[in-house]
């Protein structure tokens, strides 16, 4: 089975993230890393190949030169090869344009299954997987909390507010997995060394036959007009419980008319 896992290099979610002068995500001011939510996708690909005893895993990313680090991180966890779509014209692409480029790259690759995370930790829209399934014309099984592949059939479990639903589709397919699929492994030292020798291919927009006017900040169909740092919340009252903490809290809630 051939699997392509989509990975994204994002500003560390624990860092103090912000915007650049052109109102795109500032990648220079903070450390960037493989999006945590993509690690679950990598893990699921590795588990599938381990279970089936065969398979080939390729990681696909789109981003500036530095995004290659996300490929290396994924490759250090396991898998075979990386593909990096890199082109200056991509800077500032919105979700629709991102899906256009990734779909074009996926059309160049051979795969039975595409696995993605549920969202990136920077944009957090979570719409690229659905857009890709739409563009590729394959079944899209999103919000998967559990993933199984049996022959040419792919089954996921989706846990929503009112039900736990089992959904089945046939390969080729795209699956977006949540953090509920299971803890991702840490790369071993051997894995980190091996990753350095694994092949990474780069594609430009021209290689993919995508018109540069359709992507980037200028080609985006949405525009950020302003970005304002949220003022820190005013520090409130903190008391130490001396046996009447619950009563005092009730008084506060009554003042706010919550009771």
């Amino acid at each position, binding site marked *: 089975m051939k699997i392509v896992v989509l990975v994204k290099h994002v500003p560390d979610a624990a860092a103090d993230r912000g915007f650049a002068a052109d109102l795109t995500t500032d990648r220079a001011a903070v450390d960037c890393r493989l999006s945590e939510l993509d690690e679950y996708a990598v893990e699921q690909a590795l588990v599938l190949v381990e279970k089936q005893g065969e398979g080939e895993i390729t990681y696909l990313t789109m981003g500036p030169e530095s995004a290659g680090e996300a490929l290396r991180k994924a490759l250090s966890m396991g898998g075979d090869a990386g593909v990096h779509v890199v082109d200056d014209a991509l800077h500032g692409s919105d979700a*629709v344009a991102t899906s256009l480029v990734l779909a074009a790259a996926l059309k160049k690759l051979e795969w039975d299954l595409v696995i993605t995370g549920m969202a990136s930790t920077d944009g957090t829209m979570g719409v690229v997987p*659905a857009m890709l399934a739409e563009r590729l014309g394959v079944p899209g099984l999103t919000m998967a909390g559990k993933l199984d592949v049996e022959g040419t059939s792919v089954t996921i479990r989706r846990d929503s507010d*009112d039900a736990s639903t089992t959904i089945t589709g046939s390969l080729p397919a795209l699956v977006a997995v949540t953090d509920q699929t299971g803890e991702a492994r840490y790369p071993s030292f051997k894995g980190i060394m091996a990753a350095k020798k694994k092949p990474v291919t780069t594609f430009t927009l021209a290689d993919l036959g995508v018109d540069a006017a359709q992507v980037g900040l200028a080609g985006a169909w949405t525009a950020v007009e302003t970005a304002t740092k949220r003022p820190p919340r005013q520090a409130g009252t903190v008391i130490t419980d001396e046996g009447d903490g619950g009563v005092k809290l009730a008084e506060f809630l009554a003042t706010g008319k919550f009771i």
Partner: protein
Amino acid sequence: MAEVLVVVDHVDGAVRKPTLELLTIARRLGEPSAVFLGTGVENATAVLAEYGAARVYVVDAPEIDQYLVTPKVDALTQIAQASSPAAILVTSSAEGKEVAARTAVRLGSGLLTDANDVDASGVATQSVFAASYIINAKVTHGSPIITVKPNAAAPEAAPAAGTVENVTVAYSDLSSQPKITGVQPREKSGRPELTEAAIVVSGGRGVGGAEGFGVIEALADALGAAVGASRAATDAGWYPHAFQVGQTGKTVSPQLYVANGISGAIQHRAGMQTSKTIVAVNKDSEAPIFELADYGVVGDLFKVVPQLTDEVAKRKA
């Protein structure tokens, strides 16, 4: 006046509150038309009309419920192509976002998700980077598609005609579409929906175990609140994942958020820091949650919370 399509979020025709919020927002942008997909419209038309739907487009076909989102995308795309709306508003749920995403690709429309508000010029307000930034963004191409979070507006009645128009949809080839092969309904708690609730009472690592959530639920019930949980609590299996508040769970913005035994890691703050009033109970006085709290109690939640529950019951009696 230009039409604004509002996709109705409903269960067998019982319209969920976020749809009434969307109708209220839609009136700023033009004349709302509800898009009702599935069965049960006879239960929905009155309330949709009451909240301002001049038209109700209805697609009641077996395909809608048999498959996941594709038939809904087929329907919404065709209704949008026929009506050239000024905007398409969808609830920011997992399914809503998926329908919106696919429709954006088909229509050639820009897409904004998770809006906290949309003004009369179509500018959406969004909270980003774990709610540390507020951005204003606009769609610049095609009929704007915007998914809006619950609690973005207070629903306001504005009676309109609510004229029903049945629509026949030409479905795309559904033969290769994924199918629902099993459904295990979740037990109903009788509490309000987490993302829609005016008050949310949450428990975290400090609750200590599944049985500890009893005191959290008791307070929630006294306040008429929904129950939430931190990732630490859901990962440990103490409370179901569907109730997780945070970056990988639900984002809530209630009038009151009560955090119990939650330290306030960035992953949790991302899901709750836009709450109007925040109250915290934690035995660690250094817990970052106290930086956000309007009122905090440093103490044992198993003493403070039951006392609060009793006091709430007393005051309500």
